């Protein structure tokens, strides 16, 4: 927001930049009145989780619904400042993740009641901050289905799982996956490790090697590096959040995919309708809402036992119909 009769150097520069950008935007898009949207991420946009938000935002931009800009690699301590900068610059919707800056970020939301905030958070929405809606990747439905496939593909019945940190969004997917495995392999055992970092692929790889040495023949690849270890040792892996099969065609059977599009569309619709409020958008990641899916088997077409595939298809239909519920368990999983 630029106010006052004495333009500062920054405001002149900003308006200059804004004019240039406006000149570049085709008239057709302007007519659709895109919402000014900003993404603020604590990791690079390559990171699996954030990449799903980024892709959905770029798609919305291509569709003319938003005017999207983003900041990546923002430190948690710097997060509130970046939020304020975008708010001051006139952004109307901020999407991001405040897992590491919950309290401070919520204070900023309260300071800018005219801006809509759609933020990934471990906590729930707060009626006192009506312009903050929360979301999370509740893709346990898809994780469950990949578990069914993994259980059918393991010969040793020993499955390795490497995670970053045991936070709710990681734990619930691991538990759903394990529940899925038990459908096809009731006697399965699991090795679970957390590497204490989101971005240390060499460490994730070493941890996976250790599990493979201990007998794992299917890896649940929550982190980059795990599928590499599986590939090097010639065993199988299940991807998470993004489809990693193109990079590991002989290794990754399938992946549990997160689709952020329904979440973003719901938020944009709510803003357009003037009904954006303190809601939990987590449900928009559920399979019934189209927020997650199991990736196509691709290179593993025909290599997965038909009974398992039939069971996965049946469960998927039941989940979509609402007759089967995957348990949401946020506790830290342990090796067993």
């Amino acid at each position: 927001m630029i106010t006052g009769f004495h333009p500062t150097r920054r405001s002149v520069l900003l308006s200059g930049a804004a004019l240039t950008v406006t000149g570049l935007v085709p008239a057709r898009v302007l007519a659709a009145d895109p919402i000014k949207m900003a993404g603020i991420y604590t990791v690079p946009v390559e990171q699996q989780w954030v990449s799903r938000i980024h892709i959905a935002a770029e798609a919305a931009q291509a569709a003319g619904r938003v005017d999207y800009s983003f900041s990546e690699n923002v430190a948690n301590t710097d997060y509130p400042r970046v939020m304020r900068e975008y708010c001051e610059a006139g952004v109307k919707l901020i999407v991001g993740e405040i897992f590491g800056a919950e309290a401070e970020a919520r204070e900023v939301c309260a300071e800018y009641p005219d801006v809509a905030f759609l933020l990934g958070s471990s906590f729930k929405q707060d009626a006192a901050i009506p312009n903050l809606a929360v979301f999370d990747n509740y893709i346990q439905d898809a994780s469950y289905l990949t578990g069914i496939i993994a259980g059918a593909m393991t010969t040793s019945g020993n499955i390795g799982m490497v995670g970053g940190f045991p936070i709710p969004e990681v734990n619930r997917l691991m538990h759903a996956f394990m529940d899925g495995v038990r459908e096809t392999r009731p006697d399965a055992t699991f090795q679970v490790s957390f590497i204490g970092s989101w971005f240390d692929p060499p460490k994730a790889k070493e941890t996976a090697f250790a599990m493979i040495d201990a007998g794992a023949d299917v890896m649940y690849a929550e982190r980059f590096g795990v599928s590499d270890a599986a590939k090097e040792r010639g065993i199988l892996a299940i991807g998470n959040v993004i489809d990693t099969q193109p990079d590991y065609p002989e290794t990754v059977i399938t992946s549990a995919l997160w689709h952020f599009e329904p979440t973003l569309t719901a938020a944009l619709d709510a803003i357009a309708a003037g009904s954006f409020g303190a809601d939990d958008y987590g449900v928009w990641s559920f399979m019934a809402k189209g927020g997650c899916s199991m990736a196509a088997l691709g290179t593993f077409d025909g290599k997965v036992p038909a009974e398992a595939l039939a069971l996965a298809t049946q469960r998927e239909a039941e989940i979509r119909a609402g007759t089967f519920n995957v348990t949401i368990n946020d506790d830290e999983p342990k090796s067993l």
Partner: protein
Amino acid sequence: MMALVDILISASFWAAAIRIASPLIFATLGELICERAGVLNLGIEGIMVMGAFTGWFAVYQGMPLWGGVAVAFGSGMLFGLLHATLTVPFGLSQHVVGLGVTLLATATASFAYRLALPQVTSPPRIDPFQPFAVPVLSDIPFLGPALFTQTALTYAAFGMAVVVGLVLYRTPLGLAVRAVGENPAAAAAQGLSVTGLRMGAVMFGSGLMAVGGAFLTLSAFSSFFFDMVNGRGWICIALVVFGAWRPGKAVLGAVLFAAFDAGQVRLQQTEIGAILPYQVFLALPFVLSIIALIVMSRRAEVPAALMVPYNKGER
């Protein structure tokens, strides 16, 4: 307890320890050379990030793997030159300059990565160094799979340790480097250029640090991530102290630390793993290293002129 023995007698555990130790060996040797010449190089963490990026990017642009290693070495030398210029002839605080170099190199690597690859959604990959089984040697039971089925860059790390040891203790150049780190005035009286030797040592050492970083993207993994060095540089500073400024002991320290690390991921899968929180295991290598450091450093001989700038003619 039996689980621990099982881990220790498995070749795959020792193979993992050697693998994890390799980047640490390169960077520790690099830091050791700097410090033996009297310069503490806290730029190590950032220089490793820079090496990880430049080495990987060169290969991604089509250079051969060894070309990537050379590019990483060169980029490390450039940041070494910056560090050395500020700390040696200008005599500025080595702590401040070192941390500054780390911040600059880390930020530059991130910035260059995003400039070069603005649109990627999944980090691009290269074909990294593959494990190479040394003929005959790799057939030795236990030792073969543990030591002789590593990647070429791992063999290079151990080869470099031998070279650094030989040069430091068996050549006039090594004597000169050690002399400027112990008593620069005496070295200068012998007609040696303290400035030249120190700057050269810092540049070469920084090159090795960058190769240590490049190991992560060219051998341990196949793509570059902003935070992937993840504190390994700081570990190497401690390893130099642990090794009492001697290359052989420093390599031993790196392997020991790596063995603790390889051991903790395996211990997590035993009965104890089900009882103790995973954080205890992650902290284990650091706790054990601190204990080892206390024991080892009691007889360490610190280079006498470490962190003491030398001004010609000053008494």
